[in-house]
Structures are given as structure tokens and as C-alpha cells.
């Protein structure tokens, strides 16, 4: 009887954890942030798009090779080759199909920014980006995975949000606050996985404890934006920074959930990503991580020393925006 009661209490607790009532402000941040990310991604690759994704003998590395490797995992994974084959049936050249795919992605990014046709746009952005990431699998890196994940969650979330143009143009039924809370939880838990695993793996390497990994990562091309002569001057800071990165990442899973430490931890993580972007030139990676963090934990996060001014307002992260829920 006690076991049954505790099991039912556990289930209730799990449901409460998974479905906290939420406003859609975090979704606005995710949509606008990922829209910006998609726009920046396409603009950064505009001059190399055809060169990276062209077929055998026309580009840097054959697109078909990347697609063959992906197909070994599963032939069902979307790839640009599908679009090229489809275009071929209609008599459209490979070059034109690639141009259209690039333009589609750029438009999808702009539409996401504005909040126009949110759901179909999110699906198109996810699909075309996934095609590009998988076709260029040999050339992909971490930022592609995070973009895919972000767009995957975005297209499944209850769009549109209140700041989207869709919401203003068409009368849309207010979204279920618990469903909004569920998708935010998914994003929050996902980020905890990312930092805990990343931090744990770093802790297992001695180079992060003595600062040599930070030195090596900052002097290797193409991340060597800072001159090694300048880095040498901060030799004694490198171990401290290396250990701080390990602790920040491993500690994320614990301290981001505590109200007292959430804001400080979030600021430190955001500062780390800004530093990665500025000192290593990994702008896309930095931007996507900042967007995901802001959407997951940034919206509604309170500045600790300003708490007494906010006592009368509601807690958006764990509780809800009451005005919004009553309004719905």
C-alpha cells in the first residue's frame, strides 16, 4: 500500500516536473534566436554553398560521398541529394536546386525572425538545414548538431508565440501553458545533458586542469585569433580558466535549477560562449548556444540582488505568468 502510494506520488511529481505551466515568452526567444541563427548560417556560407555541396568533380569534396556515408547509417536520413534528384525529374539543374535550397533556408530564417507561418517555416528550416548538414557530414561540426536540435524542438513546440506576426494577423487559440512548459523542460534537460557530458569529458583530460588545453585550443588554426605572444602574458590565468570551464559545465546540471544560483550560472555560461565566439571565431556555435540557454533558462530568470523589487511579480521559470494564464 505504501509502495503504491509512493509510486503514485513519484508519478505525480514527474508529471508536475514535466508539465509546469509556462508562458510562451521562452518560445519567442527560441524562434527569434533560431531565425537569426539560420540567417547568419546561410549568409556565412553564401560564397561557399555550391562549392561545399556540389556533386562529384564540381566542389571541394563530393556531396555524394557525404551522402553515401550518411546512408550507411540509414537511407531514410534527409539529404540534399533527394532535392537534387527531385529537381532532376523536373529538368532543373543541380546548381539551380542548390541555389533554391539556399534561398529557401534564408527565407525560412527571415520568416522565423518575423514569426510568419511559424510552423511550416520551422519545418522547412529544420528539413533544409538537416539536408545540408547530412550531405556535408564530413564537413560538419558541433554547431550543426545544435542547430538541428534547436530547430527540431522548435517545430514540435506549440507555435506561434504571442510576439509572432501570425498571432497578430490571425486569431489563434491560446496555447496550453502546460504544453509550453513541457517543451521548455525538454530543452532545459537537454542542455543539462550537453554540459554535464561535455564537462565530464573535459574533467577526464589532464590538459584542462593545467591550462595546456586552453593554450592549444587558442593557438591552433583557425581558432588562433589571439596572438600567442599575448596569451603567454596570461600564462598563470590559463589553469584557472580551464578548471573554471570544467566546473561551470559539470556544475550546470545542479546550479542552474537552484533559484539562488541560476542567474549567476547562466551569466557565466553565456560569458563563456561569448568568449568562445570572440576569441576563437566560432560565431555560429556561440550564437546557437546563447540562444538555447536564453530560451531554456534566461526568460524569467531573476537577478538575485533585485529580488525584493520583483516580489509582487510572478516567477516565470518555475511558476507562470498569471496574467497570461488567466487571460487564456
Amino acid at each position: 500500500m505504501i509502495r503504491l502510494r509512493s509510486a503514485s506520488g513519484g508519478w505525480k511529481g514527474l508529471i508536475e516536473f514535466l508539465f509546469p505551466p509556462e508562458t510562451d515568452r521562452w518560445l519567442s526567444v527560441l524562434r527569434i534566436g533560431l531565425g537569426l541563427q539560420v540567417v547568419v548560417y546561410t549568409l556565412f556560407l553564401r560564397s561557399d554553398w555550391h562549392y561545399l555541396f556540389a556533386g562529384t568533380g564540381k566542389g571541394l569534396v563530393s556531396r555524394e560521398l557525404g551522402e553515401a556515408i550518411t546512408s550507411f547509417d540509414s537511407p531514410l536520413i534527409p539529404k540534399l541529394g533527394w532535392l537534387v534528384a527531385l529537381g532532376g525529374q523536373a529538368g532543373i539543374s543541380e546548381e539551380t536546386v542548390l541555389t533554391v535550397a539556399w534561398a529557401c533556408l534564408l527565407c525560412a530564417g527571415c520568416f522565423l525572425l518575423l514569426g510568419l507561418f511559424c510552423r511550416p517555416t520551422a519545418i522547412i528550416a529544420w528539413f533544409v538545414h538537416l539536408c545540408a548538414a547530412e550531405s556535408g557530414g564530413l564537413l560538419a561540426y558541433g554547431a550543426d548538431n545544435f542547430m538541428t536540435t534547436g530547430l527540431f524542438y522548435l517545430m514540435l513546440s506549440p507555435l506561434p508565440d504571442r510576439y509572432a506576426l501570425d498571432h497578430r494577423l490571425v486569431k489563434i487559440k491560446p496555447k496550453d501553458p502546460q504544453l509550453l512548459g513541457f517543451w521548455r523542460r525538454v530543452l532545459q534537460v537537454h542542455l543539462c545533458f550537453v554540459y554535464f557530458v561535455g564537462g565530464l569529458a573535459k574533467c577526464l583530460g589532464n590538459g584542462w586542469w593545467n591550462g595546456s588545453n586552453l593554450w592549444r585550443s587558442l593557438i591552433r588554426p583557425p581558432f588562433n585569433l589571439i596572438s600567442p605572444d599575448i596569451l603567454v602574458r596570461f600564462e598563470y590565468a590559463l589553469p584557472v580558466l580551464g578548471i573554471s570551464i570544467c566546473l561551470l559545465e559539470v556544475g550546470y546540471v545542479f546550479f542552474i535549477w537552484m533559484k539562488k544560483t541560476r542567474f549567476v550560472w547562466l551569466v557565466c555560461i553565456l560569458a563563456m560562449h561569448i568568449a568562445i565566439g570572440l576569441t576563437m571565431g566560432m560565431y555560429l556555435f556561440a550564437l546557437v548556444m546563447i540562444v538555447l540557454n536564453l530560451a531554456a533558462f534566461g526568460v524569467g530568470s531573476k537577478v538575485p540582488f533585485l529580488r525584493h523589487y520583483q516580489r509582487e511579480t510572478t516567477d516565470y521559470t518555475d511558476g507562470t505568468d498569471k496574467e497570461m494564464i488567466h487571460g487564456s
Partner: protein
Amino acid sequence: MTSKRIYAACFGVHFFLLTAVCFAGIFSLIAEGATMLPSALDRCARKGELVAASVLGKEAAASNPARRGIATYLHAAGIQAGYTFFAPNIPSYHKLILELHYSDGRVEYDSPHVSGKAAALRLDSLLDRLSNPIYEPLREVVLKMLAFSVWREHPDVEKIRAIFGSVNPPDISDFDQGKREFFQPMFSFDFSLRKEENKSAPQ
């Protein structure tokens, strides 16, 4: 309530798969001896990696529908790779030097290049991948494509020798004493572009 149960079940499956992917990544690093953990753990880690791989269906036949279904889902959600970036240690970076041989005996040096910085990052990512032993079967064909991309700009080149190697940066103390990075060739391939014959000469 039913819909909440469905959502909760999906949540469970999604994060169960993500856990398996992450554990596979961590176990792989330990099994390769890349971490500072004692080598006695290597065998256990290898077993753990195999368990994680079998959970993900990777031990099943390539045509197995469950394996394909899981792989498709992981790629669609962008969770096919663990999050062990820049860990446990930062390896050397890699460089491809192309020795262009002209018919008049001239020799020039070049390397594959792209226009934008974002694409340059991807090219470096490709070169780092090629150093990994699991990409060994692909090395020659990828280097041939990279050499071909440069040959298109120099159509009068007769032969290209592609030299792939690692660049070992100095430690901070060595750098302070004036030491600089050095290139260590790993393997090279000769591509004859006028004739159809290609010779490879791994070093």
C-alpha cells in the same frame, strides 16, 4: 491525462537514447586511453561502449529496420554524436600540403581553400576527421577530391603529391623559449592527373 502520458513516454525514450549516445562517447574516450583514468578501466569502458552501441542498434545488421529507425531519429534530432567537443584533450591539428608538379619540372605548393571563414572551419574539421583511423578507408578518395579541387585552378599541372600530416604546437613554456610548431607528415598520395593512374605511398 492520456496525452500527458504519451508526452512523458516520448520524453523518456528521447532522453534514454540521448543517454546511450552520451555514454557511448564517454566510454569510447576511456577505452581509447585518451583520459587520465587508469588503463585498467579500458576493458570495462570498451564493454560499456558495446552495450551503449547495442542499445542504439549499432550491433544489428545495417539493413535492420530498428537500427535504421533509431539512426534516422538520432540524426533528425541532431543527437547522433555525444557532446565531447574539445575533450578530454586538444589534439594536434592537421594540414594538407599539395605539391604541384608541372610538365616543365616546376614545383609549387598549395592547399585546398574556401572563400569564407565559416567554410574554412568546416575544411579544418574534415582534415581532423581524416586523421582518425576509422576514416582510413576514405582517406585516399577524399584527398583525391581535395587535390582535384586545386587542380581545377591549375589545369596544366601534371602530378599532385598530397602530403597529409599533423602540426604539433609547442607547449606554452617551449613557446616562451622560442620553439615553434612543427609539421609531421603522416601519409602521402601521388595523383597523376594527365594519365588515369594513381599511385599511393603511405608513410
